[in-house]
């Protein structure tokens, strides 16, 4: 019997699979200029955070009482100093580090808690009734109100801020995973698995979860900048990181008192927050496009 020969170009065709062609996702990212920009910014931000101890010219909390309010580009202080003469560049680098720490921790919390709950809610109607109603109630409150409330109850610290922000993000994560689960569980391959007597756990872990991964990753990159802003806001309100530990929010909050005397002390952390958010948003958008099979340019149109 004649068999259709394996067409070599088929892999490059319409590209239906999610997560299958890792090479395809990478090449799609690479061909998207915004994705490249976001990716480069992301690398710069992460490097700045990781290498903060090496890059920073001074310890972030070291005070120089003889040189407060230095302008940017003064010798010895590239970005100037604040009211206590602390080097703004050093504080900025360590501030980025704490911001990313809080961001990553809260995203991890949202993913680790939200994903299984979303899977359960999407897969079983009984769980759905409970989980989705609770999600609805939580979503009725603005994200920041919840985060502020939780942080106020648990007391100010880096860990508590991360937990508060993470918890506040769990409902959106549940929504996303639940939606994906609802879609995937109707697909023929899940029906096929059911006719092979696959258990619900098997189906959820081995079929639904891998196919929902792309959506989860994309959602994580969306949550990340929100968490970074949230950290800045909590710290600004005195509910997050405590001085003298540097954090972008604390730098902003401190700079507020002498905003007209040394505007640079507020401008640089502000720019840093904006850049971090932009980096994650651009990269997340590009990632979503890369994962979306309907978005890839169709090469083999008939």
């Amino acid at each position, binding site marked *: 019997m004649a068999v259709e020969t394996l067409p070599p170009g088929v892999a490059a065709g319409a590209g239906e699979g999610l997560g*299958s062609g890792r090479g395809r996702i990478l090449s799609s990212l690479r061909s998207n200029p915004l994705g490249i920009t976001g990716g480069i910014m992301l690398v710069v931000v992460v490097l700045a955070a990781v290498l903060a101890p090496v890059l920073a010219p001074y310890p972030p909390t070291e005070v120089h009482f003889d040189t407060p309010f230095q302008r940017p580009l003064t010798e010895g202080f590239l970005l100037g100093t604040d009211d206590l003469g602390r080097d703004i560049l050093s504080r900025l680098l360590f501030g980025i580090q704490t911001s990313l720490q809080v961001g990553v921790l809260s995203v991890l919390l949202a993913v680790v808690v939200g994903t299984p709950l979303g899977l359960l809610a999407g897969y079983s109607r009984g769980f759905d009734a409970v989980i989705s109603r609770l999600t609805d109630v939580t979503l009725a409150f603005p994200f920041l109100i919840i985060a502020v409330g939780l942080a106020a109850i648990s007391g100010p610290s880096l860990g508590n801020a991360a937990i508060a922000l993470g918890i506040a993000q769990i409902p959106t994560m549940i929504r996303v995973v639940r939606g994906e689960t609802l879609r995937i569980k109707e697909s023929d391959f899940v029906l*096929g698995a059911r006719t*092979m007597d696959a258990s619900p756990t098997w189906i959820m872990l081995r079929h639904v979860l891998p*196919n929902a991964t792309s959506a989860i990753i994309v959602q994580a990159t969306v949550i990340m900048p929100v968490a970074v802003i949230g950290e800045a806001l909590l710290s600004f309100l005195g509910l997050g990181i405590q001085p003298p530990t540097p954090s972008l929010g604390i730098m902003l909050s401190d700079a507020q008192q002498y905003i007209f005397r040394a505007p640079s002390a507020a401008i640089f952390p502000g720019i840093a927050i904006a850049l971090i958010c932009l980096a994650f948003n651009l990269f997340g958008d590009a990632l979503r496009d890369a994962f979306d099979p309907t978005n890839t340019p169709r090469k083999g149109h008939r």
Partner: protein
Amino acid sequence: MLQDAENILEVEDLEVAFGGTPVLHRISFAMRRGERVAIVGQSGSGKSTAIGAILRLLPGSGRITHGSIVLGAGRTRGDVEDLAAASEPVLRRIRGQRVALVPQDPMSNLNPAMKIGPQVADAIVASRRGTDGGRPDRAEVRQRAIALLSEAGIPDAERRYGQYPHEFSGGMRQRVLIAIALAGEPELLIADEPTSALDVTVQRQILNHLQSLVDARGTSLLFITHDLGLAADRTDRIIVMSEGRIVEVGTPRQILLNPQEEYTQRLVAAAPSVAAVLDAEPLTPPAAAKDATSPILVVENLVKEFALRGRRGSTVRAVNDVSFAVERGTTTAVVGESGSGKTTVARIILGLETASSGRALIDGESLTTTRGAQRRALRRKVQPVFQDPYGSLDPTYSIERLIDEPLRIFGVGDRPGRRERVGELLDQVALPRAVAQRRPNELSGGQRQRVAIARALALEPELLICDEAVSALDVLVQDQILGLLADLQDRLGLTYLFITHDLSVVRQIASDVVVMKSGDVVETGSVDDVFNRPHAEYTKELLGAIPGATFAA
């Protein structure tokens, strides 16, 4: 530039490329006024690209890189134009006015948020743009739209003018699309697979109607289809395309009865609708193979009611008192149009749905009542092959993992043993063992369906439920898969329950038929009886609607 004034369209050396790769290789053909021409080809043959080029509506990076497309002068308006070189303003006066398109999918080609009537009226207004400067008279346009809708075969068009697309059935929507295409009184109508999404009986009504409209107006029709039988029934001339080239051109009689090219011969041999009438040689061994053992599958008085959403207590009966039996080692086809309940029956047998009443027994046991180990054992006996080979294989899995998943679920064998079994299964479905490490999206539709079959065979089932298992495939591939299924039945003694809407496939593979309509069994019997001596009116209607029947003689 037009070589013959009697031609409405002359395509010369047309080459179209996407990016840098040419997909149409210098094709040439001409159409005479009032002629009906079919372009037949499988997916990827370039037939849609050809009409995209004629309308200058190529998707994405498609460009005409060589050749001309000359449109003859209109009878009442318009000059000879080279569409390949025409500017966009010129094209806008041609599209919809002199050349119109009936698109493929009636579900997605109407704006769901807009009423039907205004969509037709829009087409009328657009087609008059540039002819007279004046604002169109709204009442007059409305009257014209209603007239067009009734002409296209929509009853009570006055009332339906204000309805939305979702209130129309697929066939009715296709009629609306035809009305839109005819709004500008075009001289060339291009129909791109206008009925491939519709049931056969609806397909026949629509095509009869389209033909009478086209004949009455003297419009030329360029008909794109993958169905050779349909092309033969409906057109004066057939152009066979493959891989961006014209393979053969001829009258339906020449192409079907005396094909010259090897490709056309294969296509004719594989075309199920043609084969169903040309030679009735079944692929399966005749019913003599039946032994007198107890049937493997017995369906008894099966009823399935679905609750209607939002209306408490009211239900719709999808399956109404269905009974039939399948003998071991034979193939039974369940035939019906969409909404006939055939898929629901299959799902109940597979235990994916529970019956409202009645039973589906496999070797005397039902999947819905058994539990635990007994149910697991029963599952191994029945496996499905689904319609869509793109949706039925998890895209994140490699072929090897896909095929050995059932083995892992049932804990069959150890790792090397399972790997060996996957190799055997790939051999059985005639795929090279090297595909094991690939992923589904690297394979073609036919290869994927082979993987789906290999996966279904992994647990050595006795009964395969094929739910439209070949409907999504091109005819040549479809033929190969049907051959593979027949071959596997021979070697492994499998029993098939074949759910399909395509009567011509039934003729090729099945020994017994169950004809279903709106949840009821209309007729059962052997293929010979049902095809040659149909009793039910509906069966006769279905048989009459098989395209290609004109060449039965």
